[in-house]
């Protein structure tokens, strides 16, 4: 039987990268797998995507997916600036970028917040495990207060909540998920790829080697037993008829469904579970994150969404052709223009 193919005639295998070198069972690998799956399902053209990362276990992963996309494994905490430059150079590119909690929460906190401020349109995935893996198990800035790790003892610092930081910084798309919840990760990835602004996905992704004890809120057992999805998520294509006219969606009442219309006309359909979270409400987004932090509730889903403000390329008022593709005529003003400048500088 021939392999299944997507609308481009490509099999899922063709969206893979090189074999992973991470620890067997690493949460990051399951996220890479969801990226591969959603890229395959969406039928993305890989040459129109770039994948960029910082440094750390998580930042190795772009080598393991989308082998047909240009990739850049940059510097620790500096992925956002590289993405900014690349997407200014070619605004027609889409970007999936991977960072970690050390990469974004410590060394790269400044770049994390400033790329959001500039509203560079890309998918900013934080594979968050609360621990430094490559250097063998130090606490990261997102580690739980009071947590005990074998080599480094007690963590007496309060954690930084990167989803909260993203909302506060003005991100127009902020989600939290769990690498063990493949379906939700996929749905959020799809929405984030469609989003026309910085989309931050803070995905709790357990480190099976250094931080996977049941007592850790970043562990598989904890996530499996304690994840509280805020809603069920479904992405509906642009040609979808609006929810109000089509209420036969399972057991849900009209009021229990939120359809978030996206820039390209797609909808994020959120089916209510046992809470009233509306991601279009910034106050609610901050409240749900603060409550989660305070009461250690592992709330996942689309935390915050707003109609994106102009992207950096819009703000820069750039020509329609990507800057990297301009020809000499657009790159060098004429001899006449040059002579005019020289004349203006002359004494007489």
């Amino acid at each position: 039987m021939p392999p299944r193919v997507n609308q481009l005639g490509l099999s899922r295998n063709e969206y893979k990268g090189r074999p992973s070198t991470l620890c067997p069972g690493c949460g990051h690998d399951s996220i890479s797998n969801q990226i591969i799956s959603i890229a395959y399902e969406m039928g993305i053209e890989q040459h129109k995507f770039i994948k960029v990362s910082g440094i750390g276990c998580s930042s190795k992963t772009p080598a393991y997916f989308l082998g047909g996309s240009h990739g850049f494994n940059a510097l620790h905490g500096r992925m956002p600036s590289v993405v900014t430059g690349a997407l200014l150079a070619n605004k027609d590119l889409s970007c999936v970028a991977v960072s970690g909690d050390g990469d974004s929460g410590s060394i790269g906190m400044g770049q994390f917040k400033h790329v959001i401020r500039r509203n560079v349109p890309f998918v900013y995935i934080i594979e968050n495990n609360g621990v430094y893996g490559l250097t063998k198990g130090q606490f990261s800035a997102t580690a739980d207060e009071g947590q005990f790790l074998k080599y480094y003892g007690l963590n007496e610092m309060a954690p930084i909540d990167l989803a909260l930081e993203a909302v506060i910084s003005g991100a127009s798309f902020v989600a939290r998920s769990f690498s063990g919840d493949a379906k939700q990760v996929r749905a959020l990835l799809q929405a984030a790829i469609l989003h026309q602004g910085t989309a931050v996905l803070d995905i709790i992704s357990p480190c099976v080697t250094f931080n996977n004890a049941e007592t850790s809120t970043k562990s598989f057992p904890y996530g499996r037993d304690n994840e509280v999805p805020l809603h069920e998520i479904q992405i509906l294509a642009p040609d979808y008829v609006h929810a109000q006219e089509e209420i036969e969606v399972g057991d849900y009442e009209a009021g229990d469904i939120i359809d978030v219309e996206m820039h390209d006309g797609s909808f994020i359909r959120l089916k209510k579970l046992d809470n009233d979270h509306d991601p279009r409400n910034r106050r609610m987004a901050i409240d749900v994150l603060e409550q989660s932090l305070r009461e250690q509730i592992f709330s996942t889903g689309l935390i915050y969404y707003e109609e994106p403000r102009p992207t950096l390329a819009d703000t820069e008022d750039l020509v329609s052709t990507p800057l990297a593709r301009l020809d000499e005529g657009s790159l060098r003003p004429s001899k006449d223009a040059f002579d005019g400048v020289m004349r203006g500088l002359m004494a007489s």
Partner: protein
Amino acid sequence: MAINLQSQPKVRTREPVINDFAFSVATKNGSGSQTSNNVLVMSLFRMGIPVNGKNLFPSNIKGLPTWYTIRASKDGYTARKAITEIVVAYNDGTATEDVANLPPGGVCITTDKIARVIKQRDDISYYEIPVAALMKQTDVPSAFRKLVENMTYVGAVAKLFDIPLDLIYDVLLSNFKGKEKPAKMNHDVIKLAYDWTAENIEKTDPYRFESMDGTTGKIMMTGNDAGALGAVFGGVNVVAWYPITPSTSFVDGIISFRHLRQNENKENTIAIVQAEDELAAAGIVTGAGWAGSRALTSTSGPGISLMAEFAGLAYFAEIPAVFWNITRMGPSTGLPTRTSQGDLLFTHFLGHGDSRQLCLLPGNLKEAFEFGWKSFDLAEALQSPVFVISDLDLGMNNWLSDPFDYPDQPIDRGKVLNAAQLQSFIDEHGKWGRYMDVDGDGIPYRTVPGTDHPFSAYFARGTGHDVMATYSERSDDWVENMQRLSLKMDTAREMLPGPILDNSSGSDIGIVTFGTNEDAVREARDWLANDGIQTDYLRIRALPIASAVGDFIHSHKSIFVIENNFDGQLNQLLHIESPEDISHVRSLALGDGLPMTPSWIYENLKEQEG
């Protein structure tokens, strides 16, 4: 601080001295003196007198001492003079020292108030301007009064040394972009002081300006503006920066010329991002260069320190980008508003591990423009960061120059493959790998994101990699890559701008220098020649150095390496680069925060050679 007093020339005769003397204007910064000084410089420029203005200013917004030196030179010498014959002493805080620095026969123009304290020398001329009384006669609104007060010395100078008032008005109009109201307000004050000087001051000095034909067809500009203009004509697409003296005006320059590159709908082909710090600025240009655009950042010492991380990455991942370092005094925060050539070694070796950066070293305004555009061609041709090392003196001061030359070569994007070219490459070589050196020059072929070909993608990284850009920890891959990078450096040596060479004297003495020392060296060589000491000359314009530099060193018995840093960094570099004994190469390094003077070179070289 004062301008260092060095050798005192003998008392000059009272013969008229025309178009060959220098001013020092001492004021407080933030007092509007920049406009006054600019008006004087531009007026002399329009009179056809070769002139150079240098701002010696404090790192402060308002209230601290600032000096501006203006040198008129009928012979076209534009280096800073150690001694200025005339001082405008308008800052009570420094006036005593300013007057003490005057040579016998010098001139002090000051306010009546300051004069009471400083009138102690009988070998100079004092001209006192009753500034407060004059200002009372004007109808300048009180909000502007302090800012135009300095125009009183412009009026006095105009009268005393013969600058036509109508010409000053034209300059004011240009300065205020054609707005008559501020031009007239300033001009009224100038005229008041001019008339008062005419009636009340008896001129006892020999100095005077006279219109001449020394600037026809020439331009005046700052080096930062010239470099920025060069970048605009070099096709810059992405500019990322963080404000830092003395490089800020470089990006201001790009902003002011950005319109030259807009399309008919006023849309931009240059994106300009003020980043959160220099590190991010370096990251942005690295990302932009990787993605196929022409990217530039401009900074100075502390910013270069932050950029070290990306410089190493871009060097190793072989990503083109242009970095301007408008050098100021280090180490550390150093002297933010003083010039220096102290970043030469740091910039050249920027990045940890075995990295070596390509550097261009403009010595004058024309080269600032030329390297402004050429740096992009070199960065893309060599797939490497290119650092243009200018300095505060060139960057922020107004320089006289012949007009620039329109770029004489088409834009060179280097070895970048589009989809069709990539296919041809694969057909010819069996495969394409990002770091394959098929031409034997150390320069591989690259693709940029967005290239629609199934094999165009590669993974850029700062980690060890093989020719296919795949992660590798193998020693042989590492060594092979480093050997290729070394070969690429050797290719670069002869592609970069070669040295300026004057071998015509036949002397055994050779002077080697770089950057903005050019004018001071030129003048010092003339002085030495007058004393019978001939010298040959070589000015290095790029690193790594070209083979011609070694030839020059070995063909002279005595080499002096003149540079404006404390440690003699170019001298050190020449010793690093020379396998043979070059003990005949000696360092003449200054590094005092000021532009180099001919007298310092003349005296030190004479002493060492004698």
